[in-house]
């Protein structure tokens, strides 16, 4: 079975981040980049499926030049090879543009299954898996907390607020996974050393037959008009209980629509 796993390099969630005032996009140069946490679960699931059913795993990553940490981590965990799409024309692509670019890259590859994380910790749109499946004309099985593959078909548990749905489709298909699905492995030291010798194919927009008018800030359907910094946390209200504390607490919760 040939599996493609998509990963994204994101700014460290825990680091102080800022927006570039000119482009209103995240200033990625000022923070450490790393693999999107949810994507580690996608990589783990791809590796487990390949270990169980045989086959190979290819990691695909799109990002600015030098943003190599995410796909390298996937290679260190055990993925066989990488395809890295990088082109200045892709900078500022929104989810629609990104899904088009990724679909073009997938068009150059053979695969039975595409796996990705259900959201990235930076933009959190959660929409790329669905957009991608649509562009590829493939079934989408999203928010998977369990994946079973049986020859030509795939069955997942689709995580919902109330439990899970069981969703089935034929292969090839696009699957997005949630954190509940597995426990991502740590790379081993040998895996890290081996990763350096694994093939990495770097593509620019032309090599993936990407029409640059449809990507980047120019080709995006959405535009960020304005951004403001989150105000610092206020101190909160201290209520001294002089007999009416319970009522005041209930009123507070009611105003905030908690009760």
């Amino acid at each position, binding site marked *: 079975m040939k599996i493609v796993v998509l990963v994204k390099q994101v700014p460290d969630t825990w680091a102080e981040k800022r927006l570039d005032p000119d482009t209103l996009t995240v200033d990625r140069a000022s923070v450490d980049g790393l693999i999107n946490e949810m994507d580690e679960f996608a990589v783990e699931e791809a590796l487990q499926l390949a270990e169980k059913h045989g086959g190979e795993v290819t990691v695909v990553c799109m990002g600015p030049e030098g943003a190599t940490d995410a796909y390298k981590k996937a290679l260190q965990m055990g993925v066989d090879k990488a395809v890295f799409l990088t082109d200045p024309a892709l900078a500022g692509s929104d989810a629609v543009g990104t899904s088009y670019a990724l679909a073009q890259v997938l068009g150059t590859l053979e695969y039975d299954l595409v796996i990705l994380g259900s959201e990235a910790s930076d933009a959190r749109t959660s929409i790329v898996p669905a957009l991608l499946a649509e562009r590829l004309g493939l079934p989408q099985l999203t928010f998977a907390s369990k994946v079973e593959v049986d020859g030509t078909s795939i069955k997942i548990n689709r995580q919902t607020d109330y439990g899970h749905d069981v969703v089935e489709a034929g292969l090839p298909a696009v699957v997005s996974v949630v954190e509940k699905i597995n426990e991502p*492995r*740590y790379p*081993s*030291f040998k895996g*890290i*050393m081996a990763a*350096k010798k694994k093939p990495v194919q770097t593509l620019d927009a032309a090599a993936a037959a990407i029409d640059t008018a449809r990507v980047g800030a120019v080709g995006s359907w959405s535009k960020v008009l304005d951004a403001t910094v989150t105000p610092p946390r206020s101190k909160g209200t201290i209520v001294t209980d002089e007999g009416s504390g319970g009522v005041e607490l209930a009123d507070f919760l009611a105003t905030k629509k908690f009760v």
Partner: protein
Amino acid sequence: MDAARRALLPTEEAVALLDLTTELAEKELAPRVSEYEEAHRFPRELFRVLGRSGLLGLPYPEQYGGGAQPYEVYLQVVEELSRHWLAVGMGVSVHTLSCHALAHYGDERQKERWLPDMVGGELLGAYCLSEPAHGSDAAHLGTRAVLDGDEYVVDGTKAWITHGGEADFYTVLVRTGEHGARGITALLADAQTPGLSAAPPERKMGLRSSTTAQVRLEGARIAAERRLGAEGQGFAIAMDALDAGRLGIAACAVGLAQAAFDAAVSYARDRVQFGKPIIEHDGVGFLLADMATRLEVGRAGYLAAARLRDLGLPFTRQAAAAKLYCTDAAMQTAIDAVQVFGGYGYTTDFPVERYLREAKVLQIVEGTNQIQRRVIARALVR
């Protein structure tokens, strides 16, 4: 690890290895250390996690499944682990030491048979030299091994054994011949050997999540093919291993000192007295400056000795000096860290009191610091 230290790492592999170590330490060790220390709980499963990532065989050859790393790099892994959890860093050092005799003195057949499992990550080792009555004076150890057919029959008690009762194999120094250093032989014992058992763990001042116990050998039959090196070569093997082991303890000490220092700096930046953070009062600032200096010098010292070893040059004196300096430095740094915290430092709500209890043992193990001075002084006589 700061940028300056990263820049000094010798290879890209070393950078990746240290990054992996930090990730493992932050995600797996740091969240558990306090609870395990308090509960005297040995983190056997965490050694498996480290083992699967390849951290239990770093300085050994790749052909046996090791990481083929120079000591310069391996020791910094030990330091980084110790910064988050001394018992784990020291456990890795002890395990590595327990593989030393086989890796360096075993014959090809022995190495092919046992070394891959020992450095492969699933097994844990222990090193048995000390005895209840023979600590520093190891040359007079009394555990007796008598050859009976193709087996040694071993009787005696080994003391202060890190991983005693937890280990899968024991490198044991026994007496097969004459009195003194020349009658000692090294054996590699399986933990399942009938007649080999561990006493209840010692109740220690610190390092409580690391099991330390006596190991008893009562008519334990160990196959002669498990003898490492020649009969009578054991003491030389033990001393060679100890040179390397001392560097491991020096690295542990620097890791612990780094943890104490980081805690103290962080507290001193936040704690305000007389209208400004206490780090800006010279009384505290100078204390921290001395701590920082000891850290830099200690690390440079153990790394210099490690580089000598990596080049195949003699390093006994430098290893003793590094062990002596780094562990004394860790003790003083832990004492000073408690001082910086003031009353809070004396409570168990902050980790510095634990660092203080842990630092003490480093001045004792792998040769007391008095023995280190003797090693250094002797080297000066010749």
